[in-house]
């Protein structure tokens, strides 16, 4: 069956360090992958999209990699700040139906001073 896995345990990191979050998937051949941020009590907010033919995408302090051989995406936040504390979700397009996304359960990031 299709599965998207994100580390369910919270990631605790010190301010200024690089946070790296992982998204693994099985039995998918996604055309693209997206990352969202979700703060408590609020809806997810889109951050980045990376296509299957792209190895890396950057936006300010954010970097996403996409390895279709390993079936894995890594999400990096450099020079992390307490304001980066949130839950981060990865999402893939459902096989063959480009209008639907399937989300991982998310990883909570806590950045401390």
């Amino acid at each position, binding site marked *: 069956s299709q599965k998207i896995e994100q580390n*369910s345990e919270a990631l605790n990191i010190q301010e200024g360090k690089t946070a790296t979050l992982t998204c693994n998937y099985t039995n998918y051949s996604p*055309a*693209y992958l*997206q990352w969202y941020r979700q703060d408590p*009590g*609020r*809806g*997810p*907010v*889109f951050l980045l*999209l990376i*296509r299957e033919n792209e190895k890396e995408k950057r936006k300010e302090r954010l970097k996403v990699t996409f390895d279709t051989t390993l079936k894995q995406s890594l999400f990096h936040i450099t020079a992390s700040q307490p304001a980066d504390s949130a839950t981060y*979700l990865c*999402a893939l*397009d459902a096989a063959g139906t*480009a*209008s*639907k*996304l*399937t*989300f*991982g*359960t*998310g990883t909570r990031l806590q950045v401390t001073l």
Partner: protein
Amino acid sequence: DAGITQSPRHKVTETGTPVTLRCHQTENHRYMYWYRQDPGHGLRLIHYSYGVKDTDKGEVSDGYSVSRSKTEDFLLTLESATSSQTSVYFCAISPGSSYNEQFFGPGTRLTVL
């Protein structure tokens, strides 16, 4: 929240009663989605719409129906609410089907007693 509102924001109801949640957008986006979010399951797609009167089922559609009579409104109805439908419901919109991010509303917290 990208011109998207949900109503009500909070609702407590009893088992067996009908419930309708409303999603309203001012962005004129073609695609609209209803998700539910539960601990351990992440965001799961209930139904989505790709145009007025055009809807399709998602991963967890049993017990739910939707309607879209206008571009700006997408209604989610629980015909006879059950305790298993206690959840946080998010509406999302998207301008296109492929390679487009989704914009989420603030969510509705529904409790079925």
